[in-house]
């Protein structure tokens, strides 16, 4: 850079930017105090604190500046280091939602961290008294809790304030749960300082409360269930028994624990129970149902249990074989032929926290879990088209492709897309699995939906930050297609055009073409652009989607300046140079040949014809300068180093001159190194410089304008010069100062030091000291004094300046205070803090090393002196046991995304809640709390909740909870039983809706009585109504419980339709059997009676014949008796066959009229002989399903009976009618004869062996057999008769067939 000959004003006039902002500020204001980061020649940096003033000439133009500088690197680094540490801690606190505060009990000073203020949404300047505000923010119900606790701790001299959970009301009115704990420091046995940490635990609290409520609900379901429930270990030992189980058997909890299971089970049932147990073990999650066994109850009686064993050993939170059982003794005592109820277990599909959906193509049904409704912010399932329309248009093609893929792929697939909910664009991640039916066929889809917007936003933020580091000292811009700037970092501000404040900065015109080119092409482009005097090399890259361009600038001004300077060599050499007496030169270091401009020859006082070449040129330099210039030229040629030297030469005419030579190596177009530079006679300047302070420039004007105090005194201590500021600061007048000794401006305690330091200046040339100015008023002001020995007016003097360091001191104090605060926070906080460095092996994070930890770290972990050690050394094996966490930490280090997680440190057996962030790649800061106690409590309650939930959800009975109006909870089985989905039941049904209308009155009454407490428990069987309108029989158990302060009814429902049906069938069977038995008995009695009658007659007659062998009458009678016996025996056979055949013969359609005509044809002769009037009135096409032979036989029997007993000479009419009445076919055989006295004979009429006419030969079989035949075909027979008026036999059949009961 060549600024020679320029005034500062020229910087601005020529728009030369060289530390412009700082200079401008200085020149505008006249003075400036600024900290700058400077570079040493060796490249290291140091901080300079400087105070500068401008120097003016008589015309008021700035001719230069004067400044005092201090090296403040140490302070600055301490400050920055502390700031960084504090930042780390604050960042960790923020992530962990922790804030801290401290209270000085002596001064009442209350300091509160931003973290805590953030927590209650208070800004630092919001309230004057944060302590008062926080106190007022305590929830009314929790008020004074914290204060009372603190008082109690102080009263008991406790050092630690135990954690207290209470509520705070945030500024926005939201109630949050916080946990505060603290430490009390004592001094002289007096409490002196309290340090608090407060954490927002609302989230934990909410989760815990939720689990608790859920646990309570499921526990109440299990424990109030009517069914017994036991969980057995793999060894068959009882690990849990529900209270209801104990109730069933009458044992107490203790008795049950002490009992031996084998002794309790009936010996005969042990085998089958063991078999069932092993069967269940072999088929996880599939119940072995209907296991019947006997158990001895407390009274010693055997009770029948029906159990269902299911292996849930692998199911989390159950971990056992579950036996659902209930007492079926009552049922079994009624009948041993019970059919068991066995329903397939439906797998509970609950994926916590995720929306779940099921789309069944086969049934064309869609199911959404509650969460999914929440995620989509809707309360009804939208159509597929509506869903598709809400997907971001850009993502729609991907989604369509995904949908297409779903129907082909059977494995799990995942998609992410943007989804519009109202005006809110959310990011969704959808996982899909094929939905299979029992046979493994794909019948639809199921899967989960997750809203990943927040995650996505974080990811994008990281992406953005990594692409746009705002700290980047070089400009970085993002430009959209319409040339608007969507992002610009701080460093890019100078290059942007600000049209009006408030509006978005505009892209400078000269960028546009470049940006446009980048949009058009896809490659990364580079260009150089100059803006405001700075030249940047810009790299542009188009985004993948082509919607924006990123510009990365690199300041290449220094190089450009050089290039520019060289390019403009001619101009400089010929024009500017001449005016400024600056010459130019060029040298080929290889040949040593070169050229000088006229000015250079003039300075050397040689003729213009002088031919310059290196060797001769060097001869002009004085020996000390010659070596310097030779070395500089050599280095410039060899190493490319530019130089700028002030040297002494001796001209051709023998004059001594100071010159300034600047040399820059440049490459020629041929690639050769040339040295070019300027050459200036600075003799006058140099001489002036040397005299500046002493002679010309040391004017009152200058020293008075110095920022500090200026002084010049002799070795004897006589003040020669001082500035006005000196008088102002010390309070002494000029006259007084003139009479004072320098040492008088210091306090006695510093006098010795000052004497020494002043003495040293005269010995060593210069020195400086930090001391206090003692003013006239006795005030001590911290000052930094410098001193330099100079020769003034031929006398050795000390000249120096003093700078007020009060502010610096204050800053240092503040720094110290801040550090103390940070230390106190760091050491006192209850949370462990660790700064760690990741250890990588082959690029993979395997371990980490502790760099910094606080005291709480050691307290919580118990690890001593961890700093510098690897975690694997401290907790052997942790890298394996907690490898997932190490991977997570590694991810934090890589991505910079903070994480919060809870981890069980295996080696330490503690649970830590940890917040981690990465302050720097490869490093992470972890802040953690010991949450072992809470975690164990949560795990316990969680596992309890999970266990009860699993038990309820996997239960084989329907389980419900409802309040007066609606269902609060039902399990899958309940919904299944009635053909609904669970959500339908919960949303649309009243408790009575699952029962038929006929049950309403009773069930409403029972519900009412339970809610009012009139009844504790109900158990009844009712007719249930399914969604499809069919009815089922259900057995209902119900009791009232208190669920979270609300009276609700809970219980179980069992579908007993099969049981009821089987009981019904059994009753029928029993009736049939009883009937049969009765008939058999009747049959055996009548037949044996008949046989015996005949036999006794034969015996009697035989006796008589012995006495009177020739009596023909006796012989005739003997024959009659024998024939009768034969008939009887034949009838027996016939009846046996008859009974056997009943119901065995096939049924076919048979026309009734045809049967009637057959019978009439058979009796044609009798009818004619007796002149009977048979009136047949049978519908022509009337037919029934029957055994035709039976129907013929029945009609024959009834018609012949009517002929035999129903006709007299007076009344000879017989009517035969056949008609269809509703679903029945009705046959009538009616006569008008003497009739039957039904009062006497109704019971006997159809009984075997009953005879009514002494005149007849009948055996009493006809009506008996007819009735049996009719009944075997599903029909019935009735008789109506009045003595003297006639008899009507009515036969009914169901027109639809025998399987339908006829409708009377």
């Amino acid at each position, binding site marked *: 850079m060549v600024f020679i000959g320029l005034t500062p004003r020229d910087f601005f006039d020529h728009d030369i930017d060289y530390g412009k902002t700082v200079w401008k500020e200085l020149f505008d204001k006249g003075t400036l105090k600024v900290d700058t980061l400077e570079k040493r020649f060796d490249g290291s940096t140091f901080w300079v604190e400087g105070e500068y003033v401008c120097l003016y000439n008589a015309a008021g133009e700035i001719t230069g500046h004067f400044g005092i500088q201090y090296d403040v690197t140490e302070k600055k680094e301490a400050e920055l280091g502390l700031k960084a540490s504090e930042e780390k801690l604050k960042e960790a606190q923020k992530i962990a939602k922790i804030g801290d505060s401290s209270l000085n009990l002596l001064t009442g000073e209350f300091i509160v961290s931003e973290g805590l203020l953030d927590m209650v949404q208070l800004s630092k300047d919001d309230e004057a008294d944060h302590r008062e505000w926080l106190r007022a923010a305590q929830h009314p119900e929790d008020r004074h809790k914290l204060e009372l606790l603190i008082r109690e701790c102080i009263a008991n001299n406790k050092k630690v304030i135990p954690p207290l959970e209470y509520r705070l009301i945030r500024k926005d009115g939201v109630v949050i749960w916080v946990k505060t704990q603290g430490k009390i420091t004592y001094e002289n046995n007096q409490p002196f300082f309290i340090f608090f940490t407060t954490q927002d635990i609302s989230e934990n609290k909410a989760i815990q409360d939720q689990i608790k409520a859920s646990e309570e609900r499921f526990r109440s379901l299990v424990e109030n269930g009517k069914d017994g429930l036991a969980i057995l270990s793999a060894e068959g030992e009882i690990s849990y028994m529900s209270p209801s189980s104990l109730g069933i058997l009458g044992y107490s909890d203790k008795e049950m624990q002490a009992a031996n299971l084998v002794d309790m089970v009936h010996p005969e049932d042990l085998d089958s129970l063991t078999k069932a147990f092993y069967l269940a073990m072999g088929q996880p999650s599939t119940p072995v149902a209907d296991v019947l066994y006997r158990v001895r109850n407390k009274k010693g009686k055997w009770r029948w249990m029906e159990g269902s064993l299911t292996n849930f050993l692998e199911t989390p939170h159950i971990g056992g074989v579950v036996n659902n059982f209930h007492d079926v003794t009552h049922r079994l005592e009624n009948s041993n032929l019970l059919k068991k109820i066995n329903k397939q277990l439906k797998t509970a599909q609950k994926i916590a926290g995720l929306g779940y959906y099921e789309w069944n193509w086969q049934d064309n049904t869609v199911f959404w879990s509650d969460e999914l409704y929440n995620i989509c912010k809707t309360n009804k399932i939208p159509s597929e088209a509506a869903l598709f329309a809400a997907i971001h248009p850009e993502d729609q093609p991907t989604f369509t492709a995904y949908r297409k893929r779903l129907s082909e792929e059977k494995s799990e697939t995942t998609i992410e897309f943007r989804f519009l909910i109202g005006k809110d664009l959310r990011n969704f991640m959808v996982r899909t699995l094929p939905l299979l039916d029992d046979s493994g066929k794909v019948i639809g889809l199921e899967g989960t939906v997750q809203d990943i917007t927040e995650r996505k936003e974080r990811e994008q933020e990281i992406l953005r930050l990594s692409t746009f580091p705002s700290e980047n000292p070089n400009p970085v811009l993002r430009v959209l297609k319409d040339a608007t700037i969507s992002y610009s970092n701080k460093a890019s501000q100078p290059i942007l055009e600000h049209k009006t404040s408030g509006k978005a900065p505009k892209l400078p015109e000269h960028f546009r073409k470049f940006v446009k080119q980048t949009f058009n092409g896809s490659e990364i482009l580079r260009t150089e652009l100059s803006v405001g005097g700075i030249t940047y090399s810009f790299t542009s890259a188009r985004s993948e989607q082509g919607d924006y361009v990123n510009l990365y600038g690199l300041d290449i001004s220094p190089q450009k300046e050089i290039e520019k300077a060289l390019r403009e060599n001619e101009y400089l050499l010929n024009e500017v140079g001449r005016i400024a007496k600056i010459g130019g030169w060029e040298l080929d270091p290889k040949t040593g040949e070169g050229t000088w401009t006229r000015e250079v020859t003039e300075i050397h006082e040689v003729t213009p014809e002088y031919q310059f070449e290196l060797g001769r040129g060097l001869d002009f330099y004085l020996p000390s300068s010659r070596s310097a210039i030779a070395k500089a030229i050599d280095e410039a040629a060899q190493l490319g180093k530019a130089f700028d030297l002030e040297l002494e030469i001796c001209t051709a005419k023998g004059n001594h001159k100071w010159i300034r030579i600047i040399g820059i190596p440049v490459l020629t177009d041929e690639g050769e190194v040339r040295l070019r530079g300027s050459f200036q006679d600075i003799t006058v300047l140099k001489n002036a410089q040397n005299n500046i302070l002493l002679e010309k420039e040391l004017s009152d004007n200058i020293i008075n304008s110095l920022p500090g105090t200026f002084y010049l005194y002799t070795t004897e201590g006589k003040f020669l010069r001082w500035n006005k500021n000196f008088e102002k600061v010390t309070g002494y007048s000029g006259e007084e100062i003139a009479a004072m000794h320098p040492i008088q401006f210091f306090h006695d305690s510093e006098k010795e030091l000052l004497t020494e330091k002043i003495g040293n200046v005269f010995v060593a040339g210069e020195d400086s000291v930090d001391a206090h100015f003692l003013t006239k008023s006795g005030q001590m002001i911290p000052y930094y004094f410098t001193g330099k020995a100079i020769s003034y007016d031929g006398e050795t003097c000390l000249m120096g300046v003093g700078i007020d360091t009060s502010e610096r001191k204050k800053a240092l104090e503040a720094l110290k205070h801040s550090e103390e605060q940070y230390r106190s926070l760091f050491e006192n906080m209850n949370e462990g803090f660790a700064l760690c460095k990741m250890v990588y092996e082959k690029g993979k994070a395997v371990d980490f090393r502790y760099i910094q930890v606080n005291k709480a770290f050691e307290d919580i972990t118990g690890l001593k002196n961890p700093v510098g050690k690897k975690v694997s050394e401290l907790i052997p094996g942790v890298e394996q046991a907690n490898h997932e966490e190490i991977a997570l930490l590694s991810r934090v280090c890589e991505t910079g995304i903070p994480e919060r997680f809870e981890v069980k440190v295996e080696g330490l057996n503690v649970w830590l809640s940890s917040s981690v962030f990465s302050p720097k790649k490869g490093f992470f800061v972890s802040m953690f709390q010991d949450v072992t106690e809470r975690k164990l409590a949560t795990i316990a309650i969680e596992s309890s909740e999970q266990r009860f939930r699993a038990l309820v959800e996997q239960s084989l009975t329907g389980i419900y909870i409802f309040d007066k109006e609606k269902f609060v909870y039902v399990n899958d089985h309940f919904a299944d039983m009635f053909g609904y989905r669970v959500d339908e039941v919960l949303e649309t049904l009243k408790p009575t809706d699952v029962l038929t209308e006929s049950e309403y009155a009773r069930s409403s009454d029972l519900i009412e009585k339970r809610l009012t407490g009139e009844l504790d428990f109900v158990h009844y069987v009712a007719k249930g109504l399914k969604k499809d309108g069919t009815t089922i029989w259900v057995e209902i158990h119900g009791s009232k419980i208190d669920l979270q302060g609300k009276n609700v009814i809970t219980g179980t429902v069992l579908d007993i339709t099969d049981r009821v049906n089987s009981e019904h069938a059994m009753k029928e069977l029993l009736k049939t059997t009883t009937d049969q038995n009765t008939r058999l008995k009747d049959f055996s009695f009548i037949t044996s009676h008949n046989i015996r009658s005949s036999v006794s007659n034969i015996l*009697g007659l035989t006796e008589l014949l012995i006495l009177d062998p020739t009596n023909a009458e006796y012989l005739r009678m003997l024959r009659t008796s024998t024939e009768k016996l034969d008939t009887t025996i034949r009838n027996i056979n016939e009846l046996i066959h008859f009974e056997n055949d009943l119901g065995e013969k096939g049924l076919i359609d048979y026309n009734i009229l045809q049967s009637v005509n057959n019978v009439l044809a058979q009796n044609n002769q009798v009818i004619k002989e007796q002149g009977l009037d048979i009136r047949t009135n049978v519908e022509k096409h009337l037919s029934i399903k029957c055994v035709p032979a039976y129907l013929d036989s029945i009609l024959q029997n009834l018609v012949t009976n009517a002929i035999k007993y129903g006709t007299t000479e007076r009344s000879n009419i017989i009517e035969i009618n056949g008609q269809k009445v509703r679903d029945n076919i009705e046959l009538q055989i009616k006569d008008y004869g003497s009739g039957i006295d039904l009062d006497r004979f109704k019971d006997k009429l159809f009984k075997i062996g009953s005879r009514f006419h002494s005149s007849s030969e009948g055996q009493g079989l006809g009506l008996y057999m007819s009735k049996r035949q009719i009944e075997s075909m599903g029909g019935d027979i009735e008789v109506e008769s009045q003595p003297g008026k006639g008899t009507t036999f009515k036969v009914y059949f169901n027109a639809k067939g025998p399987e339908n009961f006829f409708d009377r």
Partner: protein
Amino acid sequence: MQKGRRIFLIDDDEIFLMISTVNLKTVCSGVEIMTATNGEEGLLQLNSAQPNVILLDVNMPVMGGWEFLEKLSGAGIGVNLDFPIYITTSSVDPEDKRRAQLHPLVKGFIEKPLTAEKIREMEIC
């Protein structure tokens, strides 16, 4: 042995009636036998028959023995019930035997056939 005793046989079995009549007359000299073939007939003839003993069958058409006894118990005034009634039957129904034992009007239960020996044991002559 008494002369002029009247024994009333009620049974639908003609052969039984014949055999019994022969046997009764053989064992009990001078006995007068009357017969009816069912309970209803028996009731109708009861007043004119003035029996000293009734031998009653159970299984008969129109009116069986038990119904006969029922009617007899309810007959009331004007009927002299001062005679023993024996059930004579081929029935093996234990119910019949039980009913016979409990019935106040029934003196005995005789299984058919009615042999001379049984008649003698009954001491009805």
